[in-house]
């Protein structure tokens, strides 16, 4: 595993609201990094900094092999215009729009790739449907198909399971596992800790002005979850007890 990105002494915040400071970590290829924290702790700001959309107050990100030309990105579903008049197939094809000639249609090979991506995401049968007819879960799958089309070495997912049912979440998690095998980096902003424990190798816990990074079990310990304001004493004890019963990593 090689270092994909080196984050050095990173401090984030807005003019009067510091979020956290002094975060240093290495992101390796094939790492699935969970970004966990209560609302307003800077998860989305961290993601936007990785995308180059937000300027850090101090520190920065160094890319040893250069910034990847393509970063897969899934924003929170609430920011998406679901009434926009396009079909599922066209939404997925947007993942490769940079390679399109403005004066010609989609090539047959791209069309095949789009079908494959839709199939992987489990929405090939909905390919011709307009977006406004989809459920929240179906739309999220279609957006995953777009990320598959991007074929990016790094993929950032901001709360991808917020509006989807259990089946869809499991399906999407299997896709994420596949990306790990392909040595892609995945940054996953998520609230469901059982998904984090089962699928992520590392975690970044934000809260109370601190940012802690490390292997999932070290970071998401009872004491840290409480200290960083993510859970109360009783919630953290209950969560860890439940995870032990399920025989997960805590067992």
């Amino acid at each position: 595993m090689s270092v994909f990105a080196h984050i050095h002494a990173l401090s984030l915040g807005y003019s009067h609201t510091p979020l956290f400071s002094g975060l240093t970590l290495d992101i390796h290829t094939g790492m699935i990094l969970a970004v966990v924290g209560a609302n307003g702790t800077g998860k989305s700001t961290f993601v936007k900094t990785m995308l180059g959309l937000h300027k850090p107050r101090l520190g920065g990100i160094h890319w040893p092999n250069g910034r990847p030309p393509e970063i897969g990105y899934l924003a929170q579903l609430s920011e998406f215009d679901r009434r926009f008049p396009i079909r599922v197939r066209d939404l997925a094809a947007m993942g490769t729009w940079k390679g399109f000639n403005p004066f010609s249609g989609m090539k047959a090979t791209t069309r095949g790739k789009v079908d494959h991506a839709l199939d992987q995401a489990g929405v090939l049968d909905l390919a011709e449907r307009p977006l406004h007819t989809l459920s929240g879960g179906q739309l999220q799958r279609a957006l995953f198909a777009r990320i598959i089309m991007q074929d990016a070495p790094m993929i950032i997912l901001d709360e991808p399971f917020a509006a989807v049912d259990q089946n869809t979440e499991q399906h999407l998690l299997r896709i994420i596992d596949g990306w790990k095998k392909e040595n892609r980096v995945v940054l996953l902003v998520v609230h469901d800790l059982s998904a984090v424990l089962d699928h992520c190798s590392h975690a970044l816990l934000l809260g109370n002005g601190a940012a802690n990074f490390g292997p999932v079990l070290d970071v998401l310990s009872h004491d840290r979850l409480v200290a960083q304001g993510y859970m109360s004493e009783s919630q953290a004890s209950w969560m860890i007890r439940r995870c032990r019963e399920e025989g997960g990593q805590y067992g």
Partner: protein
Amino acid sequence: MGDFIVEMFTYTFMQRAFVVTTVLSASVAPVGTFLVLRRLSLAGEAMAHAITPGVVIGFVTAGLSVTSLFFGGLIAGVGVAVLTAYLARNTILRSDASLASLYLISLAVGIFILSAAGSAVPLKSFLFGSILGVGDATMVLVGGVATVTLLTLAIILRPLIMSTCDPVFFESQMKRPWIVDQGFMFLLVLNLLAAFKTLGTLMAVGLMILPATAARYWSGTITAQLVIGFIFAFLSCWVGLILSYVLPETPTGPSIVLVAGVIFAVSTIFGPLGLRSKFKETRHV
């Protein structure tokens, strides 16, 4: 009646009006479609008022020539668009609030200058345009704007669709996402100026927005909406022109926009995505 219609086409001013509105439809309809999809329908109206002071200053300083009106309006429109984007990005005001503030100031400045200069041009021609008095310069202006608009749209169509559908994703994928946004606002100003000369400041946006909102009721794909939007705009112009010819003393600009309004009303009721679909859903429940 047939002779009456044939006779209508023998007049040069009517021939010019039909040609210029057809070309104008091809240009303003796609811009209108994206305005609606980008939730900027009201911003289009605001921008139409924002170009007024530029047009008026152009008129007061250089007379009623197409060139002076065009460049005056272009400077005012682009100025307001850029300032709106700047305020939205750097202050607490959202773009709708900053645009509303700026266009109101702009409109007041325009009317103030026009009155102070003791203009001999009737205000009516500013408000409703003069489609039956289309000269060569206006024909060239509308043709030029249509050419620039269609070529630009062809080039930026995919990025424009993406930035409209999912602006957050688009921003994450582009180094300079504002180029597409500002480019589109530039096209909007250009088309308002072309429509301004023919339909006037009050009616210019009507031909842009109404066919686009009506088309929204008929199709779930953007390509079909672009085509249907043009057909509706074209029909509005032709039927509106014929109406104002058949009924003497009726103003042409409002007549065109009124036909577009009827098409909108019919689409709202009978379009597959209009009220009809709502009633169908209710019956199934």
